[in-house]
């Protein structure tokens, strides 16, 4: 049985595997980092270390809901030595999903390529989109490098 943190982004629900989630934080001061991709909102201070924050809605191409500011959270995940905070509209729950209940992802979900997904699981009437955070984060790295190269070359 795998456990997932359920994150709400606009109308969608995304799941992050609990083994990859370090903590859930309230949204505090975020310092913008110039010259980065637009979905990178900046860096924040978390118990003495610097953590980059991305806007998950923007990252996965989803609409930002009319979320209550009070509900918004930053889900801090750690994947392969990378610590990244994901800003979401709300964190709803932790759910247990047996591996056999996870279906392979359809090619495109909410603008997100299938490679970024672990799979899809039913959650009551809703779909829970399970994120493959390794891919979500590492692809960013690649894109960033591309962008930096573009900047350098003009």
């Amino acid at each position: 049985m795998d456990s997932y943190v359920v994150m709400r982004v606009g109308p969608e629900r995304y799941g992050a595997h609990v083994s990859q989630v370090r903590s859930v934080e309230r949204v505090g001061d975020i310092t913008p980092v110039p010259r980065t991709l637009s979905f990178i909102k900046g860096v924040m201070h978390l118990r003495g270390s610097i953590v980059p924050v991305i806007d998950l809605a923007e990252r996965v191409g989803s609409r930002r809901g009319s979320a209550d500011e009070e509900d918004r959270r930053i889900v801090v995940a750690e994947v392969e030595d990378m610590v990244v905070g994901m800003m979401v509209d709300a964190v709803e729950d932790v759910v247990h999903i047996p591996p056999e209940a996870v279906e392979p992802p359809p090619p495109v979900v909410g603008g997100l390529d299938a490679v970024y997904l672990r799979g899809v699981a039913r959650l009551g009437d809703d779909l829970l989109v399970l994120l493959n955070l390794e891919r979500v984060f590492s692809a960013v790295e690649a894109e960033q490098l591309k962008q930096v190269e573009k900047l350098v070359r003009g």
Partner: protein
Amino acid sequence: MNAVNDEYLEAFLAESMEHVDRLEEGCLTLEREGPRPDLLADMFRAAHTLKGMSATMGFSHLAQLTHRAEDLLGSLREQPGTIRERHVEVLLLAVDRMRARLQSIAAAAREPDAPDDDVLAALAEVLQSEEAAADVGETGAGALGGLASLARQAAAEGKVLCELRIRLVPDCVMPGVRLAMVYQTLKQMAALVAARPEEEAVMAGRVEATEAVAAVIVAQGEIDQVRHAVLDVTDVAACEVSTLRPPAEEKVGTSHQEPQGPGRDAAPSGAKGARSSSDLRREPTLRVSARKVDLLINTLSDLVITKTRLATLVSSSDDPALREAVERLDRLTSEIQDGLMELRMVPVEAVFHRYPRMMRDLERRLQREFDFVMTGLDTEMDRVVLEEMGEVVVHLLRNAADHGLEPPEVRESCGKPRRGTIRLSAYASGGHVYIEVADDGRGIDRRRVLDSAVEKGLITPEEGAEMPDESVYALLFRPGFSTAERVSDISGRGVGLDAVRDKVEALGGRIRVESAAGVGTTFIIELPLTLAILPALLVACCGQVFAIPTANVEEVRRMTEDDVRHVQDRPVLPDAAGIVPIVDLAERLGLEARRDGYPRTAVVCRDGRRRLALVVDHVLDELEIVNKPLGRYLQGVKEFAGATILGDGRVSLILDVRSIANTA
């Protein structure tokens, strides 16, 4: 693997690595100084402990590998006189494999499945020849056995008995024929008295082996010619010679053996560094993972921020007891801070201990002859700085061996000792740590450096003639200078030296070089004691606060419109030292449209030789900041070297002046 096992694994890895290091160090000492009973016993113990630990942890391949190494060491311990170059080679091979295995275990928490058949076979092979030798008795006779009387006979004739171990290249097509040619050569040049495979079988074409051992009797001093003749035979990869001395008849016990070094000229060298290092390791220590210390430092900086906030709140209070308590808290925090920073310091030994092996291999590969001496191994440095410096030092050491030192023949013809010396030293002085790499080679040829710089258009001939030596040597670190292949051939310097300088300066350090023709060259690297805390200037720009390391700041200027000139439409700021390009920070960082109007605040920054004037809104403060990495996720961001947490808990980005200057 659960958490408890992880803890064990960490301890196992750390301890095992230490034993592997000890084995390697032992091999090198063995090679330099010949066998000492205590040395072999120490190596045997290291292998034994490793075997036991890896078996307990269930790493069976590693256990098997160390077991075989232990067997060989056990046997050598009994028969130190029989040690050959080949033994050390094979042991080092095994050491490399053990290290590789430990590294894979560290990465994946399990060991690779493939067994080390090649290394095991090599160990078994030398062990066998070892045992064969042991059968002959403690005479120092080699693998053929029964040669003691022949050795005596040779000595009586004023000749020597030599054993040759001949190896053909592994992919040799007709090994039988090649061996026959080798034997033929041996017979022509010396008296072939014994061989394995046997002469008759080889000559009859019944042998397909790629290795052979032969014993010949030759006149004193002629064995080198024989060896060269053998090496000239097609497909011969190696030919090791050892001289078999007749047994000392009056000797009864076996306690003292003539240290019959494995190399033909195993001169003692550079042992000082190695010895002090093992002393160092025996000091009682607490093994703590670096990660834990870093976590603690993170928590500490949080504490410092909270304390600052508290102090701000309390400053308006008039309760003396409260104020006193906060003051005390302040003192205690900075004491903890100092203590923790010290924990991050590690002796340079932690990285340097790999170098003797590397230099040994380099000496062989480059066919140079030199002693490698390390001093100041207990000098402490920030762990991060030290790790980053590892590569740089490797580069400089290679440079010294490859280009700094002359080939042995050239040295002799210049009246210098045949063996050169390469010295690596570390020491601390006045808030800095120094690392020096020195050779006693030919030195830097000023003329050639200048010629090449003129040719590359870096300077004019007139400029060159006026330049003091120091500036000439500094040319070597210029980018573009080093890429010229010809330069590295002529001057022997410059290969990637700009990369070396970049690295050193990125760590907040400096590098310079001293040289004297025919006497040698010394590279001197000066580094800050720690990277973690640095003084910085806080500047405001478009509502954001950025930090600029004070090390990069030359001055802060009030800039009026009259100060600004234009060169090719680009704004520059002339001053006494030259012309400084002006960069609007807001524009450079893509923050907002540039502001009009003067005067403006310009922070004149320097990175190496390059300067630039950064236009900011205003300067806020100068203070000590804790440098925190942005982490892997943002490693593509080049404009910022890191971030720091300000007193109010907000994050401020630290500008990377180098990168901004590069793209300005």
